């Protein structure tokens, strides 16, 4: 009843091609957007904005990037952390070398630079497949982190190798990076960027290029036979994926932690993002958001839970339990719904179509 498509007729091609062809979806998305842009900054505390919403947004963006590569083009990558580091350090170099460059330009250019690096590390994917490719992408992961850690040029010769974001304003004195930026400004800026990029990604995967990627994912030899250029399409997937991940890395360093060393983008980060897309759903933009919410919220919830219910458990026990429950939940999720939260969501929509009537 609630989610009824019946009676919604499309009378033109543009209407049929809309991102959200069903009117309920449009309302729903509008409501979410309204909540995200208005209610959250008004209501959420600083703790929520800084430690939950910001990493959620940044990781969602990185997950969209990895989803393009792994979920749509079928190329398994464990180099996400390295590419995030690339974006972060590119943004740092750009913003300190060209102080007059606008912050949006900094982020966009750092994405472009990461895309270039991604293409270079994507070349082996033409020959190597599956887990071999996954482990091979670890080469980029370790190499990039080592590079940024090693060459002092990337950190402007800071003795410790830690970069910290210089203060930059979006316009006037609305700072979005540095210590004078308010959490609300940071949040809204990140939210806008993520929304715009997510819309772009959604359109990309619906279009010509997205279909090519999916053809390669489903069977690359068949795709090649029907005339999809393997080299260009795979490298494009690497480039666009790395662009997103690079921007996410820049946002991580500039907006979320505001000071970062290369080691923060270690292999754990790669696994974290891979978790997000698998829990959220491979090949789904919505899944990237759902997965990120799950991965960001769950550990925080678990580590706060004992206090919440008034239990006095030593912190080491809490963390160990957190690890165990986290691992068990991952397995449980994979067993219950291997296609991720995005699939759960679409099943829920199916049910809502009939609900509350049984048939």
């Amino acid at each position, binding site marked *: 009843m609630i989610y009824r498509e019946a009676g919604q007729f499309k009378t033109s091609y543009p209407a049929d091609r809309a991102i959200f062809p069903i009117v309920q979806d449009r309302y729903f998305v509008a409501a979410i957007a309204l909540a995200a842009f208005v209610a959250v900054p008004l209501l959420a505390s600083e703790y929520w904005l800084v430690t939950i919403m910001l990493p959620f947004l940044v990781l969602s963006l990185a997950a969209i990037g990895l989803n393009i590569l792994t979920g749509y083009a079928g190329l*398994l990558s464990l180099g996400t952390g390295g590419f995030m580091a690339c974006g972060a350090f590119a943004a740092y170099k750009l913003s300190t070398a060209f102080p007059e460059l606008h912050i949006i330009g900094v982020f966009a250019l750092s994405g472009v630079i990461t895309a270039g690096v991604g293409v270079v590390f994507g070349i*082996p994917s033409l*020959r*190597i*497949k*599956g*887990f*071999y490719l996954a*482990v*091979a992408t*670890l*080469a980029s992961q*370790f*190499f990039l982190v*080592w590079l940024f850690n*090693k*060459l002092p040029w990337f950190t402007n010769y800071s003795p410790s190798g830690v970069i910290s974001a210089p203060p930059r304003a979006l316009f006037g004195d609305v700072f979005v990076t540095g210590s004078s930026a308010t959490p609300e400004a940071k949040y809204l800026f990140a939210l806008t960027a993520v929304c715009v990029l997510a819309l772009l990604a959604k359109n990309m995967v619906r279009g010509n290029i997205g279909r090519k990627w999916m053809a390669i994912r489903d*069977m690359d*030899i*068949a795709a090649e*036979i029907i005339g999809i250029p393997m080299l260009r399409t795979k490298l494009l997937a690497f480039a666009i994926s790395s662009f997103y991940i690079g921007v996410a890395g820049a946002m991580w360093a500039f907006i979320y932690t505001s000071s970062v060393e290369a080691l923060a983008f270690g*292999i754990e980060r790669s*696994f974290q993002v*891979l*978790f997000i897309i*698998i829990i959220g759903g*491979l090949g789904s933009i919505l899944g990237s958001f759902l997965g990120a919410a799950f991965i960001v919220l769950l550990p925080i919830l678990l580590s706060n839970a004992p206090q919440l219910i008034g239990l006095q458990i030593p912190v*080491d*026990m809490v*963390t*160990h*339990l*957190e*690890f*165990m429950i*986290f*691992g*068990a*939940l*991952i*397995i449980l999720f*994979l*067993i219950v719904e*291997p296609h991720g939260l995005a699939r759960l969501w679409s099943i829920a929509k199916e049910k809502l179509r009939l609900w509350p009537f049984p048939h």
Partner: protein
Amino acid sequence: MEFLQAVFVDPFVSIYEYPLFFIEVLIGGLLTGVMYSLVALGFVLIFKASGVFNFAQGAMVLFAALTLVGLMEYGLPLWAALIITVGIMVLLALVIERVVLRPLVNQEHIILFMATIGITFFLDGFGQMIWGSDVKLLDVGIPQDPIEIKGVLINKFDIWAAVIAGMLVMLLAVFFQRTRVGRALRAVADDHQAAMSVGIPLKTIWAIVWSVAGIVGLVAGIIWGSKLGVQFSLALIALKALPVLILGGFTSVPGAIIGGLIIGAGEKVAEVFWGSAFGGAIEDWFAYMLALVFLVFRPQGLFGEKIIERV
């Protein structure tokens, strides 16, 4: 120019000038490589028999070592602790097969891979909760002092580790080639469907393979644990085993050994002679790059089964 000289001239000059030192580095690298192979072996066994890329192997190494040391701290003699630990690893294999693998039969590889990461988290938390996070000393009587043979310094411990690894591989080879279970394992590795149709029970085979991988993990845990002390960081040696794995091929036991030797020798020689040109600490990524170079020529690893694709 200076950089080019540091990369293309200086290392060779230094190798030429100190050939003994080069041999020493090479031997040290080969022996370290064997220790990587020990960890890689566990990966290979499971991948071969069930097609699962078992990321939890590192956690299993840690868990086995923690259990062994923990039991010994309770005053059990080494042999008793060993037997109980083996029992616990078998039990763990049974539980994993029942709780994780069986419900996920026929899922995509990446899903199973993720599930093993879930196991990693669980084991890390569980092991530390029971046995604590302190560094624990493990001494099973392997000598640790260096010896000098004709001007080449070798650590006795490394030789012992290599001998143990060699024996383990031989045992595994006999197990695979000569026993009934071993033959069944090879049949499953070749073709799940065909193996099932001739009446080989897949579930039992998986439980056995995971048990064997757990025991291999225990051996790796004992050796690495007596080298480093048993502590959480032990789980991270899995990352050193991955390049060995791709270089040797996911499905080959000898590949794991040869891969370990190449990676070990390669990364040590690179670090010692080429490291200073790049500012040092290159061995981590160098191992992966080396493996990558091999992969470009043989995408299935040196000894992996040829990947045949049909449309």
